[in-house]
């Protein structure tokens, strides 16, 4: 019975997967200003500087997200 209940769960989970990836030319919407984590790069740099100074560490702050994915 448990195995039977597990089956739809696995099927739903499998439906979440995709083989399609966003192509470089399909990132127009992601490149919009309102899609960025932080729209002010100067403010972002200042905040990172304060944070790393307080923590006595640097690096590892950036993470992947929105944006145009340009080189």
């Amino acid at each position, binding site marked *: 019975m448990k195995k039977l209940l597990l089956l739809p769960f696995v099927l739903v989970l499998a439906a979440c997967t995709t083989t399609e990836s966003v192509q470089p*030319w399909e990132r*127009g919407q992601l490149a*919009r200003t309102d899609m960025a984590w932080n729209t002010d790069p100067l403010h972002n740099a200042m905040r990172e500087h304060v944070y790393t100074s307080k923590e006595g560490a640097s690096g590892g702050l950036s993470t992947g997200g929105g944006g*145009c*994915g*340009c*080189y």
Partner: protein
Amino acid sequence: MMLKRLRRIRLHLLLILPMLLGSISFGLQAAPAPDFTLPRLDGSESVSLASLRGKVVYVDFWASWCAPCTVALPEMDKVRRDLHARGFEVIAINLDESEADAIRFLQRMNLSYPIVTDPAKSTPTAYKIAGMPTAFLIDRRGELHSTHAGFRPGDSAKLRLTIEQLLQETP
């Protein structure tokens, strides 16, 4: 025992050798640039890569939302204006989802080279571009010479040197 091990190693080497040779020949082979015929963004006649055989061609993939493209387009226009008479041409392939965005963007620039559009996006697939902007330099024989990924201010100076070298070659 030792002889057996040596034989096994020899067998492994024999299996690896064709793969190594294959990769070497692949690296040396000059690949012909995938041909295309695309309509101009302004609706006038189409542009085909084959018709530019004998010229050094810079094929640039761009979009209006791509920040480095805004640097590349005017810089390459300057190079094109200087070297066009010697046989250099630029084709800028627009990949915007909305053509109106591209047209609005181009109104701010005065570009001399053909701007084409590829609504089916078959060209970026054929050229296997991995990011924006990506440009390909094609020599007079129609073969891919090099790829230029991204664009920073001043990159056109380095590109100009390569283009001038390619222009000296005979088709």
